[in-house]
């Protein structure tokens, strides 16, 4: 499975739909290669990218924190 496929599978998660406020019967319309307005989706993509690019945990955490202005 590559990053895109994993991303696609995660988008199917009912818990994620609940988290981003999308009804369970609908799809979350997000593209792996495009910027998302949803912070949750951006975080998920950052984690996938970080794993695939072998970025350190510190590096990924730093990137995510900036999304939250922390």
């Amino acid at each position, binding site marked *: *499975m*590559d*990053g895109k*496929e*994993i991303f*696609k*599978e*995660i988008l*199917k*998660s009912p*818990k*994620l739909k609940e*988290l981003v406020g999308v009804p369970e019967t609908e799809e979350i319309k997000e593209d792996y290669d495009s910027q998302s307005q949803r*912070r*949750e989706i951006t*975080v*998920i993509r950052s*984690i*996938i990218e*970080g*794993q*695939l690019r072998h970025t350190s*945990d510190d590096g*990924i*955490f730093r990137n*995510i*924190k900036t999304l*939250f*202005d*922390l």
Partner: protein
Amino acid sequence: MATIINSVSFENFYNYYGSYDHNEYKFKLGVNIVNADNNMGKSKFYNGFMWLFRDQVYDSDIKAFTDANESLVRMASGKAKAENDKFKVGFRVIFSNDNVLYSVEKYALFKHVDGELSHSESQLSIMETKNNADNPILDRNDQQDILNRVFIPLALRNYALLQGESMDRLVDLSQKKALSDTIDTLAGISVLKGICEISKKLAKRAEDLYQIKDSENSENDTAKQRDKDKRNRTQQLIENAKTEIEAANDEISAAKIQKEQLDAYISNSSKRIEIRSQLDQNSISINNEKEKIRKIEQSITGMIFDEENPLLLMGLTDELDAFDERREKHIGELAQMNNDNTLVIMLPEGSPDTSSLERMLKNEVCEVCGQPAEMHSEAWNHIKMILDRPKKISTTRNDFGHFYGALQKTASSYSRNIPKIEGKIESVKEQLDRAKENLNELEARHDDILTQLNNAGGNADNSEFNDKAIISDYDTVNTTISTKEREISSKQSMIVTWTDSLSAIMRRLASYKKNTAIQKYEDFAIMMKAIDDVIRQTKDDIFNCTIESLAKEANEKYKALTKGNQVSGGQLRFVRDHDIVNVSIRDVQNGEITGLGTGFQRMKQLAIVMAIISSKIGNEKKFDYPFISDAPFSEFGPNFITNFFDVAPSVFSQSIILIKELYDPNADDYLTSHGRKILQEMKNGDIPGTFYVNVIDEKADTTGLITSHKCYKY
């Protein structure tokens, strides 16, 4: 993102003599066959990849991998060494991945200096071609990156490069975790698991960060601080209980695996006891029969010299008459005696009598030869000696008479029994044959009973004591399972109680006024936790989905690979137990099948690997990298080979199969009829790919051997 090998070439590499251009194999998507007899370069071909990836080569003499740098002289073509002062030994592979073309070359340079052959160390050269622009990759790390990540990733190499028996080790089904690991690697779940791990760590760090910030902010708020301490303690208790539950679950999993193994023994224990009793009875009968045989054989020695009817006399029926005849004759001879009871000396016919001898002495002439015999001469003394020869015989007639008489008297009692000896021997032989036949039957029965015992999970060495030990182990395992299940249940109810307390504490904590800065950290921690839950759930869903798909795919592949075999290979069954997947082969009654031949076992391995690849989640359900296999079919018949070529293109984007089973050295085209059939299928487009045959132009010893090839289909 698939890697496709466009070509593989050799330069003065083992018996691939000559330049890369002369020894180039161009490959395509699908099945690429290199058909070659023994010693015609299959393993050498494979060794090119070993040299490139592992800096090792397989030495068929010692049947082990050796350091390539130490084997370079052996790797160099014998003809190149003999004929060239300077030459290169090289292996080159050109592959493409993601619209980028790579030319990878591993080589060493050789030269003769003062009659001595010297060479450089192995060197690696990589050229990357993107949008028609060549870019040499010089950095060693970048080179390794291309080999280990782009060409064939390290994690997949065990499945991509297979040599003969290594297929047996493809998935170590004896190790329960091995199949899960294989699924993780081939179905790409490893990446997802890695994401899961990171997400868990990040959620923990977000929570810790929030706690630090919140504590800093509420240092002076004792009530809140107290609640926070309580929350931390409760969270810790819950965390500890979860860890303990996880450990207990692991113990249960281990106990269940042991239980499963013991189940087979336990279910057959009463059967084994019955079989062992049969075995004991059979052993007693065997010993009895052996003793019987021993006694019969021993009695034969006694019977030979038996007082009543010795076997020794067999065949002597007429000897008594012959004895009589000889005796009569002898008696007749004895009857010719002188009057004084002295024996008549029977001289040869024409011999002189006593009076003639006396006369010869007196006249001093030998009347036999007419020669003079002067008194006291040698001739005269000889005549005198004949005259004076002893006339009386010391033996008496009665001595012989008594002897013969006694002998005849004794023999006459035997003579009546001599004709019965043959019958007696025949009867003993029949008894012996019968006993030996019984022994053979008993020993065959012994083997049968042992087989039954083996099938029932026992062997000749283990005893009822082992069965008792098994029963004891079984009890222990069951006790462990029930104890741990109780422990888990108790911990779970404690977790429920603690979670309730925690909720109350959390509600109280939420009611404390927070400043906006702290709220941001809390929102961050909550979201990271939620994302972690999402990712973990997705991983579990994908794993479950993969297993389900695996069971279906594996059986379809297994069926396709074993199609047309006389013996049924059974059904593959997959069972998930936490993170472990068990696989077994079941018959139609769901009984486990064991003892299938090597061919079937390899098919099982291959079917599982093919099925795992086909069970991948995502659009691409093929192995994205070349599958290169040297002599994979040594244990397979033509039926399996055909099945493999039918199935492989749907699983492996590209496979390179080095094979000898389609080679016939006596045929003009070097192909067996099976090889011709597969070639035809390729030509018809039924099997995509290429077909090469390696040939040796001239017979030579290994050092002078030159392999070239013919391309039958590209």
